[in-house]
């Protein structure tokens, strides 16, 4: 499989300014050393609780943010090493001139805030196109109508404002804007969390069909695990700025390794009355990313933490083909979970 993006030790720290001299006193370590490969044509799910850095990874990956440390390699269409480019350290203007900007796009969480209320739908979708290619008049309009039809809207919607649409339609417009520049890679940042159940399934199906038709690669950022299970082939679990487990989705849901993944999976309320699993209820909250715990970041909440977990940070190691987890006790976890919580967990 061809890679499209490769993250190596990616870090993004937001400085905290303080003191009389307004110097940087500390930093919110939103993303703290993430290694990730994304392959062409796949949909990678990224899950985790709020504040764990999911969105920051997505935004840094397409250079909306400048990474503090580490590199982001982008592989061009042929995928050979010669076209490998570290977009983390390339200037923004160069990115634009090379046309990479248009190939990496994003759909934001809440369509009510990501669409400018004072712009017509026509202008909203035309904006990214005009940035990239020189198109005007009839040609531009035809292209916009084509995009609208692709996402299930029509020519009638061209001259309207965002407030005239329902939540689902607005998200369709946001998707149309993201695919306007023929991207290869789209970051979907919680595209369905602001939507209702019935509309959520419409958008998910739309995204799925667009992926096949336009040959897109997705990074699907969400906190809803069942949505990830539906749409993505591989899933990465993040906790406090680090990836703790990454695996093919089916594998992750049937044979989770990391205790945090176990807790996340058992925490999903399942719309099925016959399936009433016992919960692993984690105590406490996610610690502050300003001062993350020493050693394994999950150890204060982990029911199986040992002394080693407090001192030594585990690295992401392979447990199965394509299944990697960062836990010192990765070989025993399954048994420990069964011992402590019984078989009904899943």
């Amino acid at each position, binding site marked *: 499989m061809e890679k499209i993006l490769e993250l190596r030790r990616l870090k993004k720290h937001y400085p905290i300014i303080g003191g009389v001299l307004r110097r940087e006193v500390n930093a919110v370590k939103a993303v703290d050393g993430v290694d990730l490969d994304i392959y062409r044509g796949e949909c990678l799910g990224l899950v985790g*609780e*709020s504040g764990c850095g999911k969105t920051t990874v997505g935004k840094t990956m397409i250079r909306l943010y400048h990474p503090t440390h580490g590199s982001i390699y982008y592989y061009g269409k042929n995928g050979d090493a010669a076209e490998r480019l570290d977009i983390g350290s390339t200037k923004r203007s160069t990115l634009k001139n090379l046309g990479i900007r248009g190939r990496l796009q994003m759909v934001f969480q809440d369509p009510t805030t990501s669409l400018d209320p004072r712009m017509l739908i026509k202008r909203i979708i035309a904006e990214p196109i005009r940035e990239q290619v020189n198109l005007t008049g009839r040609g531009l309009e035809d292209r916009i109508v084509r995009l609208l039809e692709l996402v299930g809207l029509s020519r009638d919607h061209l001259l309207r404002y965002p407030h005239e649409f*329902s939540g*689902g*339609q607005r998200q369709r417009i946001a998707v149309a804007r993201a695919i306007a520049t023929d991207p290869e890679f789209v970051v979907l940042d919680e595209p369905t969390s602001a939507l*209702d*159940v*019935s*509309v*959520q*399934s*419409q958008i*998910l*199906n739309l995204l*799925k069909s667009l992926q096949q038709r336009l040959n897109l690669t997705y990074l699907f950022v969400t*906190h809803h*695990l*069942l*949505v990830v*299970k*539906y749409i993505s082939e591989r899933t990465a679990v993040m906790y406090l700025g680090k990836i703790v487990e990454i695996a093919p989705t089916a594998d992750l*849901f049937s044979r989770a390794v990391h205790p945090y993944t176990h*807790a*996340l999976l*058992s*925490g*999903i*309320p*399942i*719309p*099925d*009355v016959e*399936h*009433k699993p016992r*919960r*692993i*209820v*984690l*105590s406490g*909250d*996610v610690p502050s990313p300003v001062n993350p715990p020493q050693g394994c970041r999950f150890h204060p909440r982990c029911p199986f933490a040992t002394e080693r977990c407090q001192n030594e940070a585990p690295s992401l190691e392979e447990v199965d083909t394509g299944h990697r987890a960062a836990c010192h006790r990765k070989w025993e976890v399954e048994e420990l979970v069964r011992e402590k919580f019984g078989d009904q967990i899943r």
Partner: protein
Amino acid sequence: MIPKYAVDRGRADTMATLLKTVDLVTNFYTYEGVVKALNRISLVVDHGTTFGLVGESGCGKSVTARSVLRIVQEPGRIEGGKVVVYLDEKNRETGVDLLEQSEGYMEALRGDQISMIFQEPNAALNPTMSIGDQVSESYLFHQRQEMNAKILEDLCSPACRAFYPLKKVQQALYRVAVRDPDALGLKILDRIPLGKLWQKRLKREAKRRSIDIVGKLGIPHPERIVEQYPHSLSGGMKQRIVIAIALACSPVLLIADEATSNLDVTIQAQILELLRQLKHEVISSILLITHDLGIVAETCDRVAVMYAGNLVEVADVNDLFKKPLHPYTQALLEAVPKFSMEGTLKSIEGNVPNLVTPPPGCRFHPRCPHAMEVCTRRFPEMIEIGRNHRVACHLFERVDGKNSRA
């Protein structure tokens, strides 16, 4: 927390009705027109059950709860119907119609016997008041009399070692307070800077109780937390505080309006666990409002599904998930990603209708796969099908005394 209505819990198996709404109608008068938010909602919540109210946003779930408590905001107005509660023994038979009661009666009832957990903990908590003050508020409002009596008892007991003349004064004041909490003398005293201090013991008692309840909700170091302000707590903690406020006076009915929808999965698991535990120990019944069918499947005994201001189906949770009858319920259940699922997700085409001009007849018919001619003309009535399973759909209307489909 001593359960106030221990009797009720014992009677839970007899399924005494606790709350009944009959043809509740609430409209909002906006510039665009009249939003018919509730269209003749009839619900029955029994003692000792967890009743789920599900639906998409804008279908009237929250408005139902707010109408029950009569806290519908402007420009909303409750236009008709009845909200009957059967709270204590003396009106067990007839019940009390809340819509006919005075505002004073409602004030005494809200937070004491029926209380509500609001959707957004950030908006529900006052950022300028400490957590302790906010929790004590409900004690000071609802249990003042009882606390006065307790303090008076303490003051009169030989164990109390207050400064002697002051003790006598306090005893006298609290005696007045017990007899008549709204006494004019006390009201005047409350306006005088130093005179206010007589309430100190009352406030201390309220604080003690709030530390107690905050601690019971599984918050570590409650003594420290009650001194803090909402901004210094995390989302899950804030939600717990909101729950603590709602539970302060051990209500008979707790209305949880999307109590977990803005929380993370692991925190949500904590809160749901807490609610389940509390239901066992303290509260009699919960009216759970949510859009997440997963939560309903796990926590509720009985479920009502709402669509565009109408009740479309009411059933026991097992029946609803195994044998949903209304096309909307079926579609809703199919539209949720499940744990074991293959193939594509089914979706409901179209959007939720605008409630200013709702479709004529059945409000679901423009999106319904089984829509018939009659659906566009006539509004379907709630009909009982099977045990405790009610549905409002023309598909099930009786033809010659038997169901056309079922």
